[in-house]
């Protein structure tokens, strides 16, 4: 046992040191309270709706969200627009459909079942319009970045003048949270950029938080039911474990061995 503890201590120290050395290199992300974290975490409905507004008015001119449909906007656990609102949102987009009986493609107003309309026809077109950089699809963006929501929330507010001596090419910007600090997206948010319907002050911080919340939902649309089911499942398992424990004690009491 003593040896075991000794080795355990060595390992802890080892990991501890490596943790410290890693921490020194990392930037501290901006912190905010996310309503969807924790055992009972849920999305802030109003934040999701505002976040959708920021996405549509700002991000969607370059970033696609190909895995989302307009119907998702009215689904439980999401922004929960009313079905009428979601229909209106869908109808405000022009969708290319077809071919029709004449063999022609045509455009029509969007329906709930349509996927979010993409800003570019294909990746090449997106690159051509953005100086060679492809604005990533945002459907699962939060899960595709190691530091998730904190990273995106910080990045949106992380634009600064480059440090003295650093020269940036045309169309490259300095961002203190971007990996490598060079980003091809210019600063998108400025105070009052959008006008929120619910009267919330559209500060950069507020918009960053709202749109990041929206992106989290987009990447994990079933997060709320996952949390709810998880709590029930774990409570169920704990109760069952206790019951089985006492049954086990009872059964093993027939023989003299300790369990």
């Amino acid at each position: 046992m003593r040896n075991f503890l000794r080795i355990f201590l060595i390992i802890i120290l080892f990991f501890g040191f490596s943790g410290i050395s890693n921490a020194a290199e990392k930037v501290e992300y901006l912190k905010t309270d996310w309503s969807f974290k924790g055992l009972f975490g849920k999305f802030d409905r109003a934040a999701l709706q505002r976040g959708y507004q920021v996405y549509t008015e700002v991000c969607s001119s370059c970033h696609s969200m190909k895995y989302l449909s307009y119907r998702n906007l009215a689904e439980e656990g999401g922004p929960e627009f009313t079905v009428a609102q979601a229909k209106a949102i869908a109808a405000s987009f022009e969708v290319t459909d077809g071919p029709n009986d004449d063999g022609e493609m045509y455009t029509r107003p969007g329906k709930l079942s349509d996927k979010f309309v993409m800003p570019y026809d294909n990746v090449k077109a997106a690159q051509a319009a953005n100086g060679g950089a492809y604005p990533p699809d945002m459907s699962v963006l939060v899960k595709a970045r190691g530091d998730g929501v904190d990273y995106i929330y910080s990045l949106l507010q992380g634009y600064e003048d480059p440090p003295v001596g650093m020269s940036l090419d045309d169309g490259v910007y300095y961002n203190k949270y971007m990996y490598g600090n060079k980003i091809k997206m210019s600063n998108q948010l400025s105070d009052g950029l959008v006008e929120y319907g619910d009267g919330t002050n559209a500060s950069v911080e507020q918009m960053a938080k709202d749109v990041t919340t929206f992106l989290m939902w987009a990447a994990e649309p079933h997060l709320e039911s996952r949390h709810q089911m998880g709590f029930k499942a774990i409570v169920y398992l704990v109760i069952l474990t206790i019951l089985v424990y006492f049954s086990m004690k009872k059964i093993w009491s027939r023989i003299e061995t300790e369990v």
Partner: protein
Amino acid sequence: MSDHEYTPNSKFGKWFNDRLPLLTLASHLTDYPTPKNLNYWWTFGGILTFCLITQIVTGLVLAMHYIAHADMAFDSVEHIMRDVNYGWLIRYIHANGASMFFLAVYIHIFRSLFYGSYKSPREVIWIIGIIIYLLMMAAAFLGYVLPWGQMSFWGATVITNLFSAIPLVGEGIVTWLWGGYSVDNPTLTRFFTLHYLIPFLILGLVVLHIWALHVPGNNNPIGIDIKKPSKDTVPFHPYIVIKDGFALLMFMIVFAFFVFYTPNILGHADNYIEANPLVTPAHIVPEWYLLPFYAILRSVPDKLLGVVAMLSAILILAALPWLDTSKIRSAVFRPLYRQFYWILVADVLILGYVGAMPAEGLYLLIARVATAYYFLHFLVVLPILGYKERTLPVPLSITEPVLGGSPNLALAKNKEKFEN
């Protein structure tokens, strides 16, 4: 094997059992005499069976919705996550289930190492176990490729490229494995097929593993041979069933926590970026459970020797029953081996850690030392230890040290006396 003959009560039961003795098998399984001093480290066999069944059942459902095509695989996984009823649940159970499976198998393996369960007469159980472990790694690797994310693609590229280290035919083998000149659609479809096949091979081997176990019976924490059935044993049902059930439930709580609250923590973020042959991720790392072997691979400067070292690190385990020369099974009575055992555990954890780090500077140095020690443990320490170590006296039976007031009375220098 239980000693008594089983006769079914009902007439039909007897008729059927004479033709296919399934009821005799069931009776054998429930009555199977098990050492009564098995501790909770012995519950992982049952837990592993649960893991395998869970993977097969969830995998079956996923396969109904998944599309094995380079252009559609990533989309179909997102379709499962979003539109399939409880698809997110099934996929998260399957993805985290792989990690849970390996967590359990590592505990199971290290339990064997501690209590000497691989020694005579259980060598065949052990070797079947090693084959199962190899197949598990293959299945896990193949499965990780299927979502067709960046780590899938580049992981597949790195691992299949290992075969190019084989002299003369290496390049040809890699092309053959890929079904083309790079990892692409043909690679994905064959990986999917093999990923579907391997679990059933594992299932078959698990049957053999348990069959082979039921011939000599379980080892136990004090590692002595026991008489079966006797005061030292309990019938498998209900004693071991309820205990395994209790341990399984505890395991499921941990499992559920990962699935419901941190489903992506064990995966890599890059795998949520669709595979792109033109963009290489900054660090290509395998899943956590393969990291120790990845560290061994990278610690050797030569590619071919690295691959040889990595394979040897696993295959050396198959030779373990003959490398360990000690007659005493359990580390409880082997004070020196116990220390080396924990050093090995630390060594493997360190290998796992450096496997996740870039192979440079201090990390590379640590990886090399740890790799050297890993082989040293099996090839030098264990064979010598069997001759040099002064072991503690081993009790005659499980009950005796418990019932007799002074355990010293119950000690015996050689086991043969007891068996006679």
